[in-house]
């Protein structure tokens, strides 16, 4: 994994935006480090699928979205939700199954949603979010808005029928959706290269006569630029695109999986060297966009923020058991 980066200045972004993108990646990293900590201390029920190592994808893509756009996430969803501006306290409380969580303890890590922010949810079924995102795009088209929907999914989901069925419909109807495949090379333990005869998932776009681009998913600015083109295309009514972001998950499939049996130490170390946060930090210094002092301050602030988030979640109460019987149908319960 070589680190080939273009000059930051060539992307034409202002410093404030660049530093926000840096901080958003840190938020994801620290948030999930905290989850690992909670899990190891037995403070977290169930499991969570961690996004560490893939932060540049969510942040790079979502940095292009407006408040009115939509995104549909996956079982490995924390990164997308944070990049879309979800409330970290409500997220962490949900991960711990607390009353103050987004879903009042009924969804957990895999089902966090924030409809008010266009966050149409993480999803526990691999590939199931792809048609939902396609429907969100269909809705925008019928309602006559310029809203764009992002459909995040993994390499393994690109082998589900829902991927092919959905991309086919979106292509036929020129729907305003961008399909973002996060190719982290493994579906749980199975190497995508052993079950798929396609080197780049992006080439599957050809079958549906839409643009398909593969990009270094750990280079936040390339992800930003490539997804920006796809989003603009969708917004102009020119239809969907497929963007494949090549990346790597540092952790196992979930917090309880060491993730080493099926992956070599060499591969892991190479990807760790290509860390989306570390490499971006180095570029910011080297290209004199920022200083160590300034970046350290951002890191310190973000750590403090995540600590407050963790404290809030830990101190929050568990839901009353009556909560299990709320929210089945729309005319019952709170809203």
């Amino acid at each position, binding site marked *: 994994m070589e680190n080939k980066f273009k000059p930051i200045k060539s992307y034409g972004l202002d410093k404030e935006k660049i530093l926000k993108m840096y901080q958003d990646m840190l938020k994801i990293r620290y948030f999930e480090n905290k989850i690992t900590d909670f899990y190891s201390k037995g403070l977290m029920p169930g499991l969570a699928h961690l996004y560490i190592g893939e932060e540049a994808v969510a942040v790079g893509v979502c940095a292009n979205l407006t408040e009115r756009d939509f995104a549909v996430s996956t079982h490995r969803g924390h990164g997308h939700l944070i990049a879309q501006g979800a409330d970290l306290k409500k997220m962490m409380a949900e991960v711990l199954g607390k009353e103050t969580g987004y879903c009042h303890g009924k969804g957990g890590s895999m089902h966090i949603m924030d409809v008010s922010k266009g966050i149409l949810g993480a999803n526990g079924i691999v590939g199931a979010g792809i048609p939902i995102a396609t429907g969100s795009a269909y809705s925008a088209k019928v309602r006559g808005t310029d809203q764009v929907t992002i459909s995040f999914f993994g390499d393994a989901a690109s082998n589900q029928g*829902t991927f092919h069925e959905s991309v086919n419909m979106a292509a036929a109807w020129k729907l305003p959706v961008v399909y973002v495949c996060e190719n982290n090379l493994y579906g749980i333990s199975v190497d995508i290269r052993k079950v798929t005869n396609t080197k780049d998932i992006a080439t599957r776009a050809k079958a549906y006569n839409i643009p398909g681009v593969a990009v270094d998913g750990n280079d936040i600015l390339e992800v930003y630029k490539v997804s920006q083109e796809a989003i603009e295309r969708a917004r102009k009514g020119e239809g969907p695109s497929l963007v494949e972001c090549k990346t790597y998950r540092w952790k196992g499939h979930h917090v309880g999986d060491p993730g080493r049996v099926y992956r070599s130490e060499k591969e892991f170390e190479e990807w760790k060297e290509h860390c989306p946060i570390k490499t971006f930090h180095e570029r910011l210094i080297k290209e004199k966009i920022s200083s160590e002092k300034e970046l350290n301050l951002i890191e310190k602030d973000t750590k403090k923020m995540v600590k407050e988030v963790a404290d809030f979640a830990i101190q929050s109460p568990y839901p009353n058991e009556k909560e299990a019987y709320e929210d089945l149908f729309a005319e019952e319960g709170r809203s």
Partner: protein
Amino acid sequence: MKTKKITYAQAIAEAIDEEMRRDKNVILLGEDVGILGGNFKATVGLYEKYGEWRVKDAPISENSFTGLGLGAALTGLRPIVEIMFGDFLMLAFDQIGNQAAKIRYMSGGQAKVPLTVRTTLGGGRSSAAQHSQSLQSLVCHIPGLKVVMPSSAAEAKGLLKTAIRDNNPVIFFEHKMEYNKTYEVPEEEYTIPFGIANILKEGKDITIVGTSNQALKALQAAEELVKEGIEAEIIDPRTLVPLDKDTMINSVKKTGRLLIVDEGYERCGVAGEIAMSILKDIFYYLDAPIERLTTANYPLPFSPALEFPIIPDEKKIYQRAKKMVIG
């Protein structure tokens, strides 16, 4: 009340037409719903009237176009998805059972899913095992779905309008053998609420609960039973979720006998579920064991010589009810 004579298929098309006119966010999506006007002609004229975006001919991708309907429902539309044959529900079961049914609950009540899935049930057309099933029990099993089984055209129209206006996922079963039949349907606009059973005929000797068009077959059987001196009370539950238990309980308290007729399979089926759900309230009023009349636990065979014997009809209802009352 002024009525007109229209077919069951026309009643369905009228319900959709009225709701599409009333609310521009109502859309229709499914296989052959557009130019063809539906495989069963239940959407005739809508494509011409509302255009290709509100009446969309979908590719043969049941799971994904159902999911597309769900995504549209989450973002401001009120979609009606047509699954041509109830058997194809199994292709769309992830989006129906894991997604649509659960998103509101999993999100802690944030999401609203105003999605109607219209599909069909019923044998009798020599369509064999993959185009004849009555799979209502499968969807009844999943919490978070409302399940509607209309009997006549007038019932179908009023209940479909309610389904489209509901803010929850509704699975709406239309009986294939009814589409071409003509019925009296009110001229004026009306809706029929969910969760209120319809007593088609009052009687004192036996309660017969029939789902979908089995309620109408039970009514035919009741006319014959009168000749034997048996007064049957006929109940159409209309909706299986929610289920109006009170009407059935009160009826059995009066008659002391209960026969449940459903075209689904017997095992883990709707008939058994209805019986068990009210048994505690009627046990001490029963003069005979509760019985159920359903499709036998076999795939639907092709030949009419084989198919009709294994599905319930008015004759079987008559015979079973008579046996329950006079032995």
